[in-house]
Every structure is written in C-alpha cells, then in structure tokens.
C-alpha cells in the first residue's frame, strides 16, 4: 500500500484513526448511512463527490446555524450603511446638494441594500468555512490513496475510533453488513506535522513587518514637519506654461502679463457721469450742498457715524478733535525720541473745516490730503457722503446751545 512508502511506522503499529468503507453508488451509501445512524454512532462521516440527495436525513445531520450567522451579518450591514451615511453626510460633513434634505430614507436605501448583501455574502462564505473547520491542511484520510476518488466517483463512510460506540470487531462487522466495495483501516497520521514549516512562519513574519513599513512612513510624514516642497508624484495642473497676473511677459511691448483695458473702456456700473455725487464738484467748483442722491436722514448719519468710527476715528478721534489712538501713540513715541517726524491729524473741529465746502471734504476723503491717504478705493461714494453728513452733525454739536433743542427735548434733559 502506498502509505507504507511515506510512513516510518507500519499501519499496524500506528494507532487506529477509524474504519473506512467504500461504496460505488449514492444509493449504497444512503443505505449504509441509515444503518450506522440507527446503530447510535456519532463520530462518523460520509465523503461524497457531490451532495447526495437525502444524506442529511440518512445521517441524522441537524440543521446548521449558518442562516442565523448570516442574519446577524445582514443586520450589521444594514446598521453600518445607515450609520455610515448618516454620520458622514449629516454630522461630519453636511452640505446641501440640489436642495435635497441632508437625511432621507429613500436616497439612502440603495447603499443600505448593497451593504446588507455584501456583509451577508461574506458571512455565508466565511461562516461556512469556519463551521466546516476549513481550511484544513491535512487529514489522516489523505494518506489513503483510494480516498482521492472521493472527489471523483466513489462514496466513502468513515467511523472514527474516537466514537464511544466504536468497537474493533462489532463496528467492522456492522460495516461489512452494508456490503461495501472495500473495507479497511485508517491509521492515525503520525508523519504530517500540524505545525507550519519554519520557513513559512518566518516568511509570514517578515512579510507582515514589511507590509507595515509603508504605513510607518505615512505616520512619520503626518507627525513631522519639513521645509522641503512636497513630492509631486502627480503634477495635476500645478505647473502650467502660462503667464500669471502681475508677472512679466516678454511677448508684449510693455512686458505686462496683465493687459490693460482699451482706452475709453468703462466697466459696468463705473460710468459715473454725476460730478456732484462722484467728485463733489458743481460746475468745476467744490459743492456746498449734498448731492441729490444722498438722503439727509438719521439713517444716513448713523451709517456715517459707523463708517467714521472705522475709517476716521483712529487718527482724528471720535470727537474729530485730531486726538485718535494713532496720533496719541505716535506723539508718545515722538516724545520718547523713538519715532521721527509726525504730522498730527487735522482737528476737524477747527473753523476752517467748519467753513470748508462739503465737496472739498469729499475730495480729501477720496484722494487724500497731505499725510492722509486716499480712501476712495475702500469707502463707497454713498458712505463717503454719509461720513461727511455725520461730520457736519459732529461740528454742529460743538457750537450747539440749549436753544437748539425743542421744548420737549429740553424738558427731557431736566
């Protein structure tokens, strides 16, 4: 027999694993299985090339737990899909797309279904393998050359010696009564080690460690800083042969990359035909009146007060007396001999400014005067006029008397 070639022990000396009966047809093995089942054996099995119809009942195999495992996996998949979609799209990274609600069941059903199926499929295959004790690299039956036919055309029945009902003589006789084609002993497998070969173990350890190396580099890159530019594996569109704004371009005579608009070009909304409103001029002379478009109202004055607080008060002070924070600081530095020359901001409450036409004040804000920079680019036309209207109110306040108030206001003061 072939197992003799491998074995240092003869089958006689090796302990008995079980008794193996071979049959030629599915009908015979069904008959035999019923006999063994009825004799009360528990640690036995049949080996067939295909699932023989009716063998479960003939052997008394109970229904597997597999469907319950798959059900658990299905519910886990469903819960995972719900949590994944809800947490990512509602909690962690919410954004509105096409006016759709952040969370609605119908939009999330497809992924719920797919993950339910995905988890179930893994559980069905994985559960089957685990319950079947697979992968199983070696088995005493592998030493039986004849047993290779179990995946081809023969049907085998093995009763193991570990079965409580097993008896060296009776079991053999019982099997013989089922008319097997062949009946013989299966010795324990003594020469096939249960342990993995050493080179496989070391190989797996080395591969596992090697597999972690890239992740170690990722982790290092995320934890440390570097002044080197990042490595451009994929260039995307980071380097493009093009001229950017404010750069030189030798293709043009003026070497500007940015082209100037044609002469006479007017951007939309920038025609500005009303000189009174936009330049503070009436017939070429500074206007003494506010333009028609600026409504004298408390809203305008309040708007002006707010803008004045932002743009003017830092130097001119909230009262307009020229004592803003910037001036105070500069004056202090000058006194300490740290800073050089400092031209103090104009006192807006002085007589000359009181008499200055509003058009000239507008011009000063727009284009700047002496040390004061131009504010035309950052304060809109309407806001500049509002600031001036507030300034007029501020100036008026300095010279106001009780007589300017209405009787009601006067009584309110008491």
């Amino acid at each position, binding site marked *: 027999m072939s197992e003799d070639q491998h074995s240092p022990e003869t089958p006689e000396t090796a302990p008995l694993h079980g008794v193996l009966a071979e049959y030629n047809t599915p009908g015979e093995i069904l008959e035999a299985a019923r006999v063994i089942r009825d004799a009360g054996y528990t640690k036995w099995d049949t080996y067939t090339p295909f699932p023989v119809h009716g063998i479960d009942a003939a052997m008394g195999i109970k229904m597997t737990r597999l469907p319950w495992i798959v059900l658990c996996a299905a519910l886990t998949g469903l819960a995972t899909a719900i949590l994944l979609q809800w947490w990512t799209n509602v909690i962690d990274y919410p954004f509105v797309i096409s006016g759709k609600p952040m969370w*609605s069941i119908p939009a999330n059903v497809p992924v719920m279904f*797919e993950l339910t*199926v995905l988890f179930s499929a893994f559980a069905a295959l994985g559960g089957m393998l685990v319950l079947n004790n697979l992968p199983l690299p070696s088995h005493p039956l592998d030493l039986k050359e004849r047993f290779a036919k179990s995946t081809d055309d023969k049907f085998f029945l093995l009763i193991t010696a570990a079965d409580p009902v097993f008896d060296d003589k009776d079991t053999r006789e019982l099997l013989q009564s089922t008319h097997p084609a062949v009946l013989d002993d299966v010795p324990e497998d003594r020469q096939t080690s249960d342990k993995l070969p050493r080179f496989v173990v070391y190989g797996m350890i080395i591969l596992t460690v090697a597999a972690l190396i890239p992740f170690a580099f990722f982790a290092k890159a995320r934890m440390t800083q570097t002044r080197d530019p990042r490595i451009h594996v994929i260039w995307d569109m980071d380097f493009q042969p093009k001229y950017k704004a404010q750069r030189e371009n030798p293709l043009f005579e003026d070497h500007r990359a940015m082209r100037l608009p044609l002469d006479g070009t007017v951007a939309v909304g920038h025609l500005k035909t009303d000189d009174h409103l936009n330049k503070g001029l009436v017939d070429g002379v500074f206007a003494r009146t506010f333009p028609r478009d600026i409504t004298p109202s408390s809203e305008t004055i309040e708007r002006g007060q707010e803008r004045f607080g932002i743009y003017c008060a830092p130097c001119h002070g909230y009262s307009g007396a020229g004592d803003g924070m910037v001036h105070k600081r500069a004056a202090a530095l000058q006194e300490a001999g740290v800073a050089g020359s400092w031209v103090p901001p104009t006192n807006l409450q002085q007589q000359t400014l009181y008499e200055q036409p509003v058009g000239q004040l507008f011009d000063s804000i727009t284009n700047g005067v002496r040390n004061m920079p131009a504010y035309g680019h950052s304060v809109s036309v309407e806001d500049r006029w509002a600031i001036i209207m507030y300034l007029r109110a501020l100036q008026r306040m300095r010279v106001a008397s009780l007589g300017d108030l209405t009787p009601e206001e006067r009584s309110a003061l008491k």
Partner: protein
Amino acid sequence: MAIASNINPYQGIPKGDNPFAQITDNVARVAEAPKPHIVWYISFGFALLLLSMFGGSIAYMVWNGIGVWGNMLPVAWGFPIVNFVFWVGIGHAGTLISAILFLLRQNWRTAINRFAEAMTIFAVICAASFPGIHIGRPWLPYWMFPIPNQMGMWPQFRSPLEWDVFAVGTYATVSILFWYMGMIPDFASFRDRATTTVRRVAYGIVAMGWRGSSRQWHRYERAYLLLAAFATPLVLSVHSVVSFDFATSQLPGWHTTIFPPYFVAGAIFGGFAMVQVLAVPAREFFGLKRIITIRHLELMNKVILATGMLVGYAYGMEMFIAWYSGALYEQFAFLNRAFGNFAWAYWTMIFCNVVSPQVFWFKKARTNVWITLLVGVIVNVGMWFERFVIICTSLTRDFLPSSWGAFIPTPVDYMTLSGSFGLFFTLFLLFCRYLPMCAISEVKAFHPAAHEHAHH
C-alpha cells in the same frame, strides 16, 4: 418542481459505465492537457494583442488627459459610460444563471453556470475599469469610497453615481465569492487528480482542504442557497441602480420610470447572448459537448427570445409614454432618436435586439450552433448600440437648441472599446485553461445516475 425536472438535458444521452468519473474527466482534462487546442493559442494571442491595445490606449489617455477622447460637452459621458453600462449588463446573465435559475430549480443551469459566473466577473472587471478612467484622474478613484482622508471630505450618498459605486462594488465582490465557493469542491477534484506537485499544491491551497464530507456539504449547500438568495435581488438592483444614473436626471429620454426594469431585461438579454458566444466555441474546442448539450443552447436561446421581446416592448413603451405624456421635449427626444442625428444607430439597435432574435421561434434555428453564435454576436452589437443611443441622442439634443452639440468618437475611443474585449477574452481564456470550466460536483448531483436508488 414538475416543470423543472422535465427539463433534463441529459435525457437520451447514453449512460456510460461510470457517468461521475466521465464528468470529472471531461472537465479536468481541459485543465490537465499538456497543450491546449491550437485555437486556444490563436485566440489567446489575439486577446493579448487587444489587451495591450487596451493598456496602451489607457496609458496614452492618462498621459495626455481625457481630451484624447471624443467626450466633449454636451456629451460628457461618451464612450466610457456606454462601455461601462454595456459590460455591467453582460455580467447579469452569469448571476441570473447561477442564482435565479438555482432558486427556480432549473437544474440544466449546472452545465453552464460556472463559466457564466466567470464571464460575470470578467465583464464586471471590464466595466469597473471605465468609470475608473472616466474620472479623468485615474489616480484618485479612491475618492469614490468612504475612506477617512486628510481633506475631511466624504462621498455624497444622495447621488446615484455613489450608489453605483456600492452596487457595482458589491456585485463584483459577491460574484467573486459565489464563484469561488462554487469552485472549492472542483478544486478538490483537481487536487486529487493532480499528477505534479505544483498542481497538487496550487489546487490544494485553493481547495482549502475540502474532502467532501457530508457534514460539510450540508453547510455548503445552505451557504450556496443563502448566497443565491442574496445574489438574486442584488443582480436586479445593480442594473436598476445603473439606470438611476440616467433616470434620476431631468434630461428628456433619460427621465423615465421604465428604466430600471428595462435595463435589467436588456442586461439579461445581452448577457445570455454573450454566454452563447462563449459557450459555442468552448464546447467545440474543449470537448465539453457531453456536458453542454445542444439542449442547453436551445434553452438559452429561448431566454434570449423572451428577454429580446421584453426589450422590444420597452422600446415601444418608451415611444408610447413620450406621446401619452404630452411633454413636448420628451416627444421630441424620442422622435429624434428614431429619425434624428443618430437614427442609423437607433435602427441598428432595433434590428439587432428586436428583429434578429425572432429566428429563435424556429427550433431549427435554436438548435443550430452557427445561427446561435451569429445571433449572439448581433445581439451584443445591438446592446452596445442601445447604450450608445440612450446616452448620445439624449445628450446631443436636449431642451435648448443652443446647447445642442455633436459627438464624434476618436480612434482612442475605438481602441479602448475593442481593447476592453482583449481584457475580457484574456481573462476568460486563462480561466478555460486553468480552472474548472463546468461545475463538476453540481453536474454530477443533477445527473440521472445520482438519483438512482436514492428513494427506497
């Protein structure tokens, strides 16, 4: 089931002394032959040529950008998405045969289910490569998956395109699991017949120590049933979700509720045609005529006839609904399909998908391998044109004439399309050569010899 058990393709075939050994031998001999058939070498060489064209055209596209394709607004989808829908559809027949026909106890499926499943997986691989390259930056497809990243961003689960990622991903994974599980007992057969150490170790590893214990078979069959039960709604969901890409948009010609069932019917139709295209030569050159019989081909031709009629019904119903809806744009979209800029593609589709399968009303045509093969090829051409018609007519002619455009595919488009067949056939030919082409244990289980003396 009475009807199902009547369909036994092996009735009338003389039984040998040992039918089980013959079945094992028939299938295993293909993989064990020292040299395959000369036709295999020729086909494999041709497939590799096409595959290198696929790789080359994709590499050219990646280097130069997707401007090398004909995709141009308003047709931003073009060939890549046409090919994607085409290949995903092909896959459906495999799952239908392996899962739905299993649940319906159509036992004749056992002869063809294995390579129909293989076809599914290879078709899904071809399909998945197209959205991968269509995103324009093929190094960023992981953005489609919910992976925590340094950008702090997540995919948008309210989009049908994201549903697609999950549907096609699940479909591919479940198909592979189903396919692999079905092969475990057959790998064990190969292992036990192996004459060389390499074969014994290689098939031994993938067989995972399967020894055909009845206690294992019990759980195995239960797992198979469960997988089939999940794969059945899954296969119906996949092409439905693919059709949502179109149906949930506002575009005339896309925005229709008939799309999900119509897409699924078309997918099964095209998939069965592809099974025929593969089965006819495979049984011829690998000596599988005793396992895949003419009766099998005839039954599949009946499925092609039935699903072809369903698809024809869908084409008619689309026209009817366009008229019945009273929606001007919808009516224009469908008139334009039949008589507009792509009318030639529309009528090619009608001829291939509706007219050509009608020959299968005749038994002589159903049982003739040449007619089967020819119609299989024609139907595949037709199903490709169906997707082309849906995508290109609708996109080139939408609401405003000012946004109308043209679609002109480039040579790179054609090379990528034909190259994808190279990927498909390369994988399929490798499968034929090295893996069990037919489900050995399943064919045995449903062979009449397995049921003799079974009931006492």
